[in-house]
């Protein structure tokens, strides 16, 4: 399903942190929102996920306004993996993943065959099936993140939102999780929208980049076209070279030494 954001504005109190943002995220693609700390990207994602009420504009999934629908109904369209999700004490992987089915359940529909099938598929797709009986709090960071992705997949929504899914992971697990995210988008024609810190990772794994600064979109498009040294300079105030990776030609950002001019960030408070 197509995710559309039109003229979105969001504020904390009187301070506007997202201004007039428009974009469309298409099914089967991964869209990455990048930008410096405090540029409004997380707030934007929260507005889309129905967690922060926008002060203006619309978020629609297949034409239906998410803020006009019930939270439960929206939960069948949109799934979100927060930046640092909280797992209940002592929960097992299977327990965690089966909770993802909640929006499809009811008082007398506590565990249907569809629930079972979706949870199994999610466990298999993320490669955590053999961990099913293990406690989530005893897994490594990379394994845990795959479990959370499994929970999101079990929710079986056409739109998947991810808030910095790789921020706490080492390089190996970053690659693993990002490849998994690509697979998630491709397989069921899901629309994936994620906030990412790492420009190079965003460029390599996303189909589209949305670059934000001071609550506004400053650039949007395919990574190879959008990602220029000028953009890096305007986002982060850093002089950088953009190289093509020897392997696949994906853009790689290399900051020049001593190039930082920390004047750039006008909104550096909060994330």
């Amino acid at each position, binding site marked *: 399903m197509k995710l559309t954001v039109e003229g979105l504005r969001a504020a904390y109190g009187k301070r506007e942190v997202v201004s007039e943002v428009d974009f469309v995220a298409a099914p089967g693609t991964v869209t990455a929102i990048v930008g410096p700390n405090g540029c409004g990207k997380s707030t934007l994602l929260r507005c889309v996920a129905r967690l922060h009420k926008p002060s203006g504009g619309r978020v629609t999934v297949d034409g239906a306004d998410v803020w006009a629908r019930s939270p439960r109904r929206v939960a069948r369209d949109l799934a979100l993996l927060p930046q640092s999700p909280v797992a209940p004490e002592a929960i097992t992987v299977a327990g965690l993943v089966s909770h993802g089915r*909640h929006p499809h359940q009811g008082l007398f529909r506590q*565990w249907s065959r569809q629930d*079972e099938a979706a949870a199994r598929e999610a466990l298999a797709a993320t490669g955590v099936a053999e961990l099913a009986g293990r406690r989530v709090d005893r897994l490594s960071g990379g394994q845990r993140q795959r479990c959370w992705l499994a929970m999101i997949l079990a929710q079986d929504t056409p739109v998947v939102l991810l808030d910095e899914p790789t921020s706490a992971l080492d390089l190996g697990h970053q690659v693993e999780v990002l490849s998994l995210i690509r697979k998630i988008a491709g397989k069921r024609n899901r629309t994936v929208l994620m906030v990412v810190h790492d420009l190079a990772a965003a460029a390599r794994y996303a189909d589209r980049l949305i670059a934000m600064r001071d609550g506004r979109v400053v650039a949007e498009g395919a990574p190879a076209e959008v990602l220029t040294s000028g953009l890096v300079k305007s986002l982060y105030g850093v002089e950088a070279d953009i190289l093509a990776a020897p392997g696949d030609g994906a853009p790689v950002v290399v900051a020049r030494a001593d190039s930082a001019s920390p004047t750039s960030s006008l909104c550096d408070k909060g994330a």
Partner: protein
Amino acid sequence: MSTLPPDSLALRLGGRSVLLPKRATVVALSIVVLLALAVVASIAVGNGRTVGWRAVEAFFGGQNSFARRTVFDFRLPRVIAGAVAGAALGLAGCLTQTLARNRLATPDLVGVNDGATVGVLITVLGSTTASIGAWWAGPLGAIAAAVLVVAIAGGMGTAGYRVLVVGLALSVTIEAFTELILARQQVDVARGVWGWTIGNLNSRGYDVALPVLAGLAVLVPLALLASRKLNMLRFGDDTAATLGVVPGRWRLYALAVAVGLAGLAVGIGGPVAFVAMAAPIVASRLAGAARVPVVTAALTGALLVVCADTLGRAFGPVEVPVGVLASLLGGPFLLWVLLSERSADGNGGAR
């Protein structure tokens, strides 16, 4: 791979399905058996000649009519009142601990029980007989205290944390009112009422147990209905919300049910300490931490209060109020919970 979730039995009929957690079900049934045994034991303990085996025989229809009257008109109503109060406290504690995501968040600690106590005490004001006060004032006082706490805390907050802090402060203040009211009573009235303010089931009978049972008949199903939502609240607010469970709304619902339950419990047995905190923790250790132990917490609470009340009557002619025994046993228990929380796997409870 077996069924998912692995610890439950999925019962399906047509398009309907119900999950039966295996371990929790076995634990709940075991506690029911223990509770039945405790009730019989409790009936067998008391003053006079109808004690021990004689009382048990009378309970099952034997002995003479005097013995049967002793058992059915005096002992049984008190035991039922105790079980009911314990179940209500255990359930209320389970709800508040879950909604605040903190094991210290129980109705006794956030001022709800104190509000209920003052409510009941007000009904004794000016009375010259040493009556215990009207049970129905318990829920009213509890609601008043809860509304006050939530209002001062400025809403339910993000994780109920402010409610907890404000509640702690207010409970001390409200307690002072209890003392004040007691201090202004005639000595014999004050003495009669004082016993109740530390948690006592003495002279509680059918007249109290039945209306409170009716109240529970409404509130317990409401708590059970919310248990699936409560399970979701254990994930952070963001995850719960994106899974379709609006955290603020369900926290308020759970708080309202908990306040009603705690108020009723105090109305019967006074503010019996620690049951609301201990029952859910014991229940979760027994039934497993995979889900919120709503049913097990209620049963455990009932068992705790019946046992404490029985113990209090078992030794010597002067009975020890159930509240005193609960505190005696509960203090060390609280220490144990707080200390074991810090070690090993204690990262999910008190934060």
